[in-house]
């Protein structure tokens, strides 16, 4: 506020109109982040919790998840057995905690693998016109097979192991990533800054590395989170039908498979792994949604 009279009576000062909106408070730090991006905060929080569980499973009050104790089978949840026991007397709580390892390992690995492969194929397809047609037709062919059936078929060809499950699921996810990357590459190719880079003497490799790649990472990251969620579910389905991880290794799908026949009388066997599975997939999807909104190209100016 300025004092008009000090300037002299002949000075005409403009009316100071008040603000009509309350001020925007810029909360720094973690609280600020949570308030500004609640979806990402929630998703990340849940995911980190699950990751923590996976790493710290031996220290969270668990016992050997493969230890059989037929005398104690099919006990309901109690003080001793927090989630109860299954048909072989194994402690479900421990199996669920250790099961997080398999599910998260599969989820992250598939996301990473499919993204890397899809990125490479998409870049090739988008930038090298001659190969585009061929590559896309192969991708179309792969996409026409439902991913779960593809994974089942591939698992039938090899022995059951976590690695093979990862490869089988990843293969089915590659085409979608490749298409996404390809469409982003095609858009970026038309941008004037790519022409400017060519005029600056950059080689194709340099352009792909410095200009195209950095701008594909944002949509790719969002897609990777969705792949992670999808992979976790597919893994559990594969295990549920017996085509996934070997029954000894606890995975959320396996635990549910074991409880399949008894679910009407002993629902807790399926309930707990299912709950953890759902929360994890929810976390990953929330993270993906939040990232997608945050990285929206219309806001690209802010990035």
């Amino acid at each position, binding site marked *: 506020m300025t004092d008009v009279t000090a300037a002299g009576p002949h000075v005409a000062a403009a009316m100071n109109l008040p603000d009509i909106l309350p001020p925007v408070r810029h909360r720094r730090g973690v609280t600020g982040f949570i308030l500004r991006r609640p979806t990402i905060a929630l998703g990340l929080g849940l995911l980190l919790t699950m990751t923590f569980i996976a790493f710290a499973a031996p220290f969270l009050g668990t016992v050997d998840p493969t230890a059989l104790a037929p005398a104690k089978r099919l006990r309901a949840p109690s003080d001793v057995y927090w989630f109860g026991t299954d048909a072989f007397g194994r402690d479900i709580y421990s199996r669920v905690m250790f099961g997080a390892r398999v599910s998260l390992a599969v989820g992250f690995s598939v996301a990473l693998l499919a993204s890397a492969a899809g990125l490479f194929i998409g870049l090739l397809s988008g930038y090298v016109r001659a190969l585009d047609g061929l590559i896309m037709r192969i991708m179309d062919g792969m996409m026409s097979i439902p991913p779960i059936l593809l994974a089942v078929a591939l698992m039938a060809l090899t022995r059951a192991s976590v690695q093979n499950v990862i490869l089988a699921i990843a293969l089915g996810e590659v085409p979608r990533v490749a298409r996404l990357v390809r469409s982003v590459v095609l858009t970026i190719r038309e*941008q*004037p*800054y790519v*022409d*400017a*880079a*060519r*005029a*600056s*003497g*950059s*080689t194709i490799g*340099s352009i792909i590395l*410095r*200009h195209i790649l*950095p*701008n594909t990472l944002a949509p790719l990251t969002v897609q990777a989170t969705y792949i992670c969620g999808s992979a976790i579910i597919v893994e559990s389905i594969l295990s549920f039908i017996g085509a996934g991880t070997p029954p000894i290794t606890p995975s959320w799908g396996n635990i549910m498979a074991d409880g399949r026949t008894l679910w009407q009388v002993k629902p807790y066997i399926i309930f707990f792994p299912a709950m953890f599975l759902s929360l994890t997939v929810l976390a990953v999807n929330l993270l993906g949604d939040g990232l997608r909104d945050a990285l929206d190209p219309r806001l*690209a*100016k*802010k*990035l």
Partner: protein
Amino acid sequence: MSRPILQVSNLKKHYPLAGGLFGRAKIVHAVDDLSFEVARGETLALVGESGCGKSTVGKAVLRLFDITSGQVVLDGMRIDELSDGALRPLRRRMQVVFQDPFSSLNPRQSVRDAIAEPLRNFGLAASGAEMDRKVSEILDRVRLPRDAAKRLPHEFSGGQRQRIGIAKALAPNPDLIVCDEAVSALDVSVKAQIVNLLKDVQKELGLALLFISHDLAIVENISHRIAVMYLGKIVEMAPKRSLFAGPRHPYTQALLSAVPIPEPDARRERILLRGDLPSPISPPPGCRFHTRCPYVFDRCRTEEPELRSVGSAHVAACHLDAMPVRR
């Protein structure tokens, strides 16, 4: 007389449009048999409205795509037939500034990296320290603060981003810069800043500019010579004064009369053109402008006029100039 820095002869660029399922693909005659020269240190403006092919000429000169036929000669060396690898070192001598300040810079590249890119590609800086020094010098030249180097494009205004684009173009010390509508997307006062910057830089460095624009008033301020384009051809070319004092081609006359004058009482003798721009897929036979020309007569419909001399260094392609009696 030193050799012109750029000589373009009989440039043609036709490209096919995706045809339907049946029938032949249509061909867009974007640029048809164009020839011009740019002398060292001079600004030649390519003026025309949308669809005339001026941007295509700019990109063709820069070899951003292959031309259909013709010759592009940069300082005596033919560049239109060179392979990518052979062309690359020559690119140092011709650079570009694009129109849209928002999409002509990589949003994820810092200003320093953007300017360093041509320096690195052409081996103009031996060390990181030398690179930084050169980047600072260039930022000074385009009147941007030195700390701009670490920032990203979105932190700058449109005018500042154009300065960054100009900095990137100046970095390898080129002989020619193609300005493709470089000021069209800027506000009035910012346009003035950038036009003045380009003129200053041209004088300081002896640069030639190929200034592509549709804004005749800006073109008058910045160029030495002007070529007016219509539907892929040059219809008139002249030194600035000669063109504005006495435009000979009816299209140039109409174009000049259409520019709104910032003076409320100025007399406006508007030459209104009939109809719309014909499609470059099927340009009209004879003189391409005949469908809209107020002075059209029979010869115009069948015979295409050549560029004839109508004054000192002034050429125009109009049958009226071949007539013994002028209208």
